[in-house]
């Protein structure tokens, strides 16, 4: 595959790819995963997505109006944040949960830092983590797939953490998304379809997602439950929010490193943290925390990997 868009430090040539266009392209690439989520969990998922997106847009508009900034609601970034946040929620949450999450993500995760381009953390993940720490009961109550009577069930990762035997979930079902989980994370097939689109159009590079996924797979394979080199690496890659996180959130332009080398370091860091949290941490899933922690490390990574301007120190 040919790389057509290279994100690097200056000097740059002009290219016909505005921030707004990229944002909307990412939104388009996420549509299959959302549609799959709706098929798997029912119409409730659509409501969660709509609430998340609409409240993100409204919050962006209000904050920009109050802060007397240029109003840029339609540049797609707020839409994307709301969408990603909703994808990270269980399908049956009370109606105010996506609203509160979107308000937090936009107002405190993004606008407080100065708006698009200034935020340290991925806003959607900041919103998700806020919800997770605030209302853990709702954030960890998942419904069974294709079951519209709201029977709760644990996610495969949570079941693994509690030492239960996993039964009835084949890797094929995991790949198609027939399992308990968040709306947008379950259908790996749809996510990869969207990611492929972004690759082909050159909007994301392989560096972060591939190193991230490979490191998680390797690490969980090496430190398996029955001694070294016995882990179920495919299960760990296919379950939880790894694919959604690695391809769509860790690759956020604002909060990930600029250079190729920096992106590889970023991906490895995310992978290690995710695997460590999953294997030995208190939570069953660690993707959002891993990405947020590496977001915080991004300025340092950039500092040490940026190519120097000739003649300066």
């Amino acid at each position, binding site marked *: 595959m040919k790389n057509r868009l290279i994100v690097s430090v200056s000097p740059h040539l002009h290219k016909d790819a505005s921030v707004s266009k990229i944002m909307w392209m990412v939104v388009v690439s996420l549509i299959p995963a959302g549609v799959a989520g709706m098929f798997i969990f029912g119409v409730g998922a659509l409501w969660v997505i709509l609430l998340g997106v609409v409240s993100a847009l409204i919050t962006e508009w209000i904050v920009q109006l109050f802060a007397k900034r240029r109003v840029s609601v339609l540049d797609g970034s707020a839409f994307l944040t709301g969408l990603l946040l909703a994808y990270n929620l269980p399908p049956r949450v*009370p109606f105010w949960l996506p609203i*509160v999450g979107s308000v937090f993500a936009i107002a*405190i995760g993004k606008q*407080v830092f100065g708006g698009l381009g200034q935020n340290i953390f991925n806003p959607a993940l900041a919103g998700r983590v*806020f919800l997770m*720490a*605030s*209302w*853990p009961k709702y954030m960890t109550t998942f419904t069974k797939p294709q079951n519209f009577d709201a029977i709760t069930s644990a996610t495969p990762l949570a079941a693994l953490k509690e030492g239960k035997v996993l039964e009835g979930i084949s890797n094929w079902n995991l790949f198609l998304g027939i399992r308990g989980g968040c709306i947008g994370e379950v259908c790996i097939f749809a996510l990869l379809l969207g990611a492929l689109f972004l690759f082909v159009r050159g909007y994301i590079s392989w560096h972060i997602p591939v190193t991230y996924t490979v490191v998680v797979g390797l690490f969980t394979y090496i430190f398996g439950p029955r001694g070294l080199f016995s882990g179920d690496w495919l299960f760990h890659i296919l379950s939880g929010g790894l694919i959604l996180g690695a391809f769509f959130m860790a690759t956020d332009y604002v909060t990930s490193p600029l250079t190729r080398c920096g992106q590889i370091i970023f991906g490895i860091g995310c992978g290690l943290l995710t695997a460590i949290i999953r294997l030995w941490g208190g939570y069953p899933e660690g993707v959002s925390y891993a990405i947020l922690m590496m977001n915080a490390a991004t300025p340092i990574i950039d500092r040490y990997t940026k190519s120097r301007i000739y003649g300066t120190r």
Partner: protein
Amino acid sequence: MKKYFYEFLKGIIKENPTFVLVLGLCPTLAVSVSVINGIGMGIAATFVLLGSNVIISLIKNIIPARIRIPCFIVVIATFVTITEMTMKAYSPALNRALGIYVPLIVVNCIVLGRAEAYAQRQTVLKSLFDGLGMGVGFTLALILISGIREALGSGKFLGYTLTPRYEPAFVLGLPSGALLVIGLLLGFFNVLKNRKE
């Protein structure tokens, strides 16, 4: 009289220890879970500040500059221990709630900071009003922070449930919630200050 009043007042807004001097944040983070804890901590710290400021400005002439810090610490620690004993004897509930944080007033930077920056070179009366003002400023800041945290984090105020339909955001009861609230309030006050200038 007016200048003493100024010394008192400056601790509340202009040089508020929490929001302007940004001192003593560790106890602030730790105890601001509920308003009653905040008030208790504020009163205890005010008492210590008052006592240490007065004593230090009284004995400032006999303390040699090179050993001033150990001298200050002994004075402060004495007052803290007295406070702790009094609390244990007369308000065990508060003592249990504030627990380890009361002995930690010894290292609360507000107390040592005022001794170092103010009391050791000012008159006794001025130091007294400075200590009182700083203490009240600290208490008010604690009430503000813990008020927000208690209302949103557990849906209560001073232990009374505000509305049973509210689902509290637990994160505000955690230390990370304290950082969040303090950070946003600091930013808010800076915005206000910049608008005024």
